[in-house]
């Protein structure tokens, strides 16, 4: 096997793997830019993966076809928004500490998804999932075509969301408000921005993206649902936001780094290079710790990150 072939294997597998992390991490980036540290991303992804999977599962013998998948993504986005609202109620309105509340939401979301799955479906069942959509012309470019232009349509949409997020954050007045309430909520409040409202909006957007990230896992990547499908990707997405220094391009780079590590590990097994399976599974989690240790906050994140805003208090 040539080196080029190996690189091709890793890249063409790694690019679609990155999408679930990318969607969730972009959502988490909006949350954190608005000053809310949402560890509940794990729970949002779990429940998104389940409700996204449900229409395709129920319609697996019908003729709904791709509409079931589309409906799944829409449902996942709505459920994600609702969980974002719940998190807003707890951390923005009730001003509860965000770290512990996030763990609570992660447990709640994972638990609800698992409970409903056990009741509605019972065991692991596959669905057809979203089919690949090679882009005419471009997908026939040697090497690059297979790496970039021969995936399911969600991959293209997700990567278009990276510049779109950058535009939203840096070129629109809503993005300015988000950054303001995450950096200096009191100043934003003085200028007449409703801090809590903007935070709620960011949480809903982040929740919708997280839910769709989950649906991507069940509909496009694994094409099935299981209790432990998300397996910490929600937490990894939170770490990616730190790694990507709260910028969409940084987040995308982080998501790619992780998925390439994962596809490298899978490729090694395919090529017959043997090492204990458990250590292969461990790799991404070890990588998160290493990455967090190396990417010390040289550019500081949103200054009001993790702190609830209270108009009645002076500090």
């Amino acid at each position: 096997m040539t080196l080029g072939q190996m690189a091709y294997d890793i890249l063409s597998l790694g690019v679609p793997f990155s999408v679930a992390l990318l969607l969730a991490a972009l959502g988490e980036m909006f949350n954190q830019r608005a000053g809310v540290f949402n560890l509940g991303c794990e729970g949002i992804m779990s429940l998104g993966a389940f409700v996204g999977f449900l229409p395709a599962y129920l319609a697996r013998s019908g003729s709904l076809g791709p509409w079931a998948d589309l409906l799944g993504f829409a449902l996942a986005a709505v459920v994600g928004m609702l969980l974002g609202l719940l998190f807003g109620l707890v951390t923005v309105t009730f001003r509860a500490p965000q770290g512990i509340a996030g763990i609570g939401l992660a447990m709640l979301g994972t638990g609800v998804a698992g409970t409903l799955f056990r009741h509605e479906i019972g065991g692991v069942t596959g669905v057809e999932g979203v089919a690949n959509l090679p882009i005419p012309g471009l997908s026939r470019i040697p090497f690059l075509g297979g790496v970039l232009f021969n995936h399911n349509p969600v991959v293209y949409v997700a990567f278009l969301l990276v510049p779109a997020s950058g535009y939203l954050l840096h070129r629109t007045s809503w993005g300015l408000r988000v950054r303001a309430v995450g950096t200096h909520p009191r100043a934003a409040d003085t200028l007449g921005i409703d801090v809590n409202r903007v935070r709620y909006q960011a949480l809903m957007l982040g929740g919708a993206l997280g839910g769709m990230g989950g649906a991507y896992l069940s509909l496009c990547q694994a094409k099935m649902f299981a209790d432990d499908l998300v397996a910490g990707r929600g937490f990894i997405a939170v770490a990616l936001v730190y790694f990507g220094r709260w910028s969409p391009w940084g987040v995308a780079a982080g998501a790619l780094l992780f998925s390439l590590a994962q596809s490298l590990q899978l490729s090694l097994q395919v090529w017959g290079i043997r090492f204990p399976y458990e250590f292969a599974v461990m790799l991404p989690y070890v990588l998160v710790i290493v990455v967090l240790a190396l990417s010390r906050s040289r550019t500081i994140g949103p200054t009001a990150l993790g702190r609830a805003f209270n108009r009645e208090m002076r500090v």
Partner: protein
Amino acid sequence: MGRRFRAFYAAAVIAVAALAAATVVALVLEAIGASPWATFRVILTGPLQDRFGITEILVRSVPLILVALGVAISFRSGILNIGAEGQILIGILCATGVALAVPEWPRPVLLPLCLVAGALGGALWGGIAGVLRAKLDVNEILSTVMLNYIAAQLYTFMLRGPLIDPAELMTGSGTPQSMRLPRSAWLERLVPGTRLHSGLLLALVLAGLVWVLLWRTTLGFRMRASGAGSKAARYAGIRVERSLVVAMLLAGGFAGLAGAVEVLGVHHRAIENISSGYGFAAIVVALFGGLHPAGIVPAAIFFGLLLVGADMTQRSAGIPANMVLVLQGAIILAIVSARMYVDDPYARQRAARLLGRFLPGGKAGA
């Protein structure tokens, strides 16, 4: 505002929070076609029907007490240890490893050695996150969550490889579990015919010691000061980073000890799913118990009841085991929300005004 109103206000907030959590759980139960009332009744009263059920509650409360004590130490010190689940697993591995390495050693040496090995293993695993936070400012929630996943893989690897019971390989069934531990390493049973073991006494003694540590020693004061306000603590000359590392070592140590006690007291061999979520349940127990040993012990017994009751609903009514996570998640969200309202003087004032409007000249102003 009088003390009576304050107490009334706190009770009202907690009642609303409990109601909200119960509503969320009831909605999920409705969604899977189970009757919420019947389920709650089974969970809360089922385990109390006979002697075995009651001892099982205490069996479950032992790891919960131990882990929650560690969680309380870490939360009080301003470092959120979410990694108890992984620390428990490492504790199990270390205790099992020692017991199987020197099975012929006399009981008075072997048993304490196993317990200490478990605690040290957990402390090491927790200490990684503590050092990373203190030296490199790595968010401890993320690092401990990742260490949980790593520990889970390491645990499976050890049970499938180096620690596997040779009998499993001979019969070819290949169940990932260790050999049975030597009898001299078992914690003795307190009530014959049940699984209640002397780990309960150990947990109660340690609860007292944690109270002494946190409220009667300089080290404990330094840790609590670091948690209450790191800037003020640093200004007062407290080495906050060191407090964080010590807190994580202790938190990990307690979780590792819980793992060792569980394997030496209940299962007598390392098997898969030994922890079954004690690490996360203990976070809820610690918060529920107000991060204080005197609250943690009753809270752990209450959650022991919930866990045994949830098992019963799973067997009798087919309610999925994941329901426990729903319950715990809802309780966490309710507790943290309620705590902010109980502590917020402005919210209390608003409540008093609101009450005064309905009860003119009533006790609200008293």
